[in-house]
């Protein structure tokens, strides 16, 4: 029963090491982590590989449903061709399709202008238009053009923009705002909360009173005021969102700081004569880090929701720039005619939120296993 003999490995396992091992064992959290990384990579890199710009408007493809096969569909070729030919102010006599190309015979009352073929090129459906032959009187001609193969995996929106590239761009914005505003909120919250917790006494009382009053103000009031002040600017917007969400962080950090200050190991350090700086550096910050990390992962989804909510109300990111909230808002208005406008962005947003929540829960279980 002597408890003195330790024949143990020389290097111990820190609580961080333990937490990482527990997190690795949590399948939902690890899957979510990979999912989130994949989502970020896709949103950052993806737009460079999608053949469409998120701002390009394809007038021929307004509200095109999502499809894995290439557009145009056969029945769309004629419509698009008629559109283009009408702009030339000529009539179609006959047309036929050979492989990738269409051959159109047109007639007109006035002599045909060879430059008219540019109307075919301008169409989103055709490319490489050529004047094959012109009749002797110049009143009829045969034109040919390649059918431009286009893919819209997610379909297109109300104005004919590719939803895939828009969703990915929106993801960039939403994730960036989530991360940046999350950091802003955490920084303000930690500084404020730690100051209150450490000063204690009257200072603490006054600082927390202020937080209480801010809490009792309608939350949305703040956001709207801030948006009104800062204007609808992307960079300032995440500042505004972050500036609102720091309240919880401040409370959590203050509570933790207070409780750490009361811990016996801090008293022990005081009894050793350690200065306040040393106590903060060696005892408080390392023990505060866990709750802050946990809260931050739970804060990011909140920020994303808040940003989407503002964008939904038309107060957030402005066209042509986009975010998931903007897309969902547009989708909600068009559910009768184009439900994919809602479903794709909603899936991206919701799955990201789920992943973030699972990571947050996993981190909490890993860092603070008492809760289980």
């Amino acid at each position, binding site marked *: 029963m002597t408890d003195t003999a330790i024949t143990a490995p020389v290097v111990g396992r820190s609580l961080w090491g333990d937490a990482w091992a527990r997190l690795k064992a949590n399948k939902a959290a690890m899957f979510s982590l990979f999912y989130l990384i994949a989502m970020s990579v896709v949103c950052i890199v993806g737009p460079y590989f999608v053949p469409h710009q998120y701002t390009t408007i394809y007038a021929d493809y307004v509200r095109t449903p999502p499809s894995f096969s290439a557009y145009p569909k056969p029945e769309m070729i004629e419509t698009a061709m008629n559109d283009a030919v009408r702009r030339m102010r000529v009539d179609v006599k006959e047309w036929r399709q050979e492989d990738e190309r269409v051959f159109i015979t047109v007639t007109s009352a006035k002599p045909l202008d060879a430059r008219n073929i540019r109307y075919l090129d301008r169409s989103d459906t055709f490319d490489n238009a050529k004047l094959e032959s012109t009749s002797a009187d110049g009143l009829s001609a045969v034109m040919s053009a390649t059918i431009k193969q286009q893919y819209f995996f997610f379909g297109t929106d109300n104005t004919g923009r590719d939803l895939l590239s828009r969703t990915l761009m929106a993801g960039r914005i939403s994730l960036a705002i989530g991360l940046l505003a999350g950091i802003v909120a955490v920084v303000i919250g930690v500084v404020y909360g730690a100051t209150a917790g450490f000063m204690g006494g009257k200072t603490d009382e006054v600082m927390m009173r202020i937080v209480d009053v801010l809490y009792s103000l309608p939350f949305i009031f703040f956001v709207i005021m801030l948006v009104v002040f800062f204007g609808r600017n992307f960079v300032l917007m995440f500042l505004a969102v972050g500036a609102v969400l720091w309240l919880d962080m401040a409370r959590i950090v203050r509570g933790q700081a207070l409780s750490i200050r009361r811990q016996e190991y801090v008293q022990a350090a005081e009894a050793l004569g350690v200065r306040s700086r040393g106590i903060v550096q060696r005892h408080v910050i390392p023990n505060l880090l866990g709750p802050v990390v946990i809260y931050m992962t739970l804060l990011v989804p909140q920020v994303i929701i808040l940003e989407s909510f503002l964008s939904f109300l038309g107060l957030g990111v402005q066209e042509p720039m986009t975010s998931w909230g903007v897309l969902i*808002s547009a989708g909600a208005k068009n559910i009768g005619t184009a439900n994919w406008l809602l479903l794709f962005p909603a899936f991206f947003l919701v799955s990201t939120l789920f992943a973030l929540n699972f990571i947050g829960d996993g981190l909490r279980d890993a860092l603070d296993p008492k809760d289980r």
Partner: protein
Amino acid sequence: MFVYVIRRLLTAIPTLFVIVTLAFFLIRIAPGGPFNQERGLSPEIKANLEAQFGLGDPLWLQYVNYLKNLLHGNFGPSYNLPDFTVTELFAKGLPISIQLGFSALALALFIGGILGIVAALNQNKAGDYSVIALATAGSTIPTFVIAPVIQLLFGLTWKLLPIGGWGDGALINKIGPILTLSLPQIAIVARLMRGSMIESLRSNHIRTARALGLSDWSVVVKHALRGAVLPIVSYAGPAAAALLTGSIIVETIFAIPGVGRYFVDAALNRDYTLVMGTVVVIALFTIAFNLIVDILYAFFDPRVRYD
């Protein structure tokens, strides 16, 4: 207890005062004014309107006047909807928002509570996991996704419910909004209830009750549940205040004429009186429900004494 309530009501006055003051000056600092955006207003008419509403007066005088009116229960006229006073607008919209909010809250407390208890009693079994899954989904999916999905499924695909509109308060028009409002609340209540019930079931006095051979009903309902509702009570107060004062998202998507949209529209249009009215109403609801929570607490927990 009575003295306590009186004291709490008295301390509510300075709180309200601070909120009103803060809100009044904040919105006035913001650039723009109520009649700037309206097209086709000649400068004379604009000046006339501003004079009529006293907007040309020094700010402090406007503030004093506003407080005076407020003391008489007068919220002033709405600048953007000139035919209505703010009071009339609330008289019209608030009952609608309260109806929806109250139904959603009641539904959430009832269903969420039961789900939470079922999960706690079956901890780490299938029933528990399905409640956790539901709660995670409910609290993760934002309202502005749930609402259009409900419209899409129930309104468009299955044609069971109208897509939107108030329909003079027909029950069928309320189902969608109430469902949307209550789903996240059900999730939160279920999660809270599960956690507090598990903790309560683990406590030492439950072990005592079991050791005394008391029936399961007595152990779970009489001893465990009463302690476990306390966190729900403290959650329900602020939640009620938020729900009853209307939801912007739900009222926008379902086209419900409640008060939820007033605030955003009013703030964007610098409709000062309507913004202030909304702030005051929300603050009053919050204060009232916090007080109700504290009174309920004393009712549930003999350790809480107010004197």
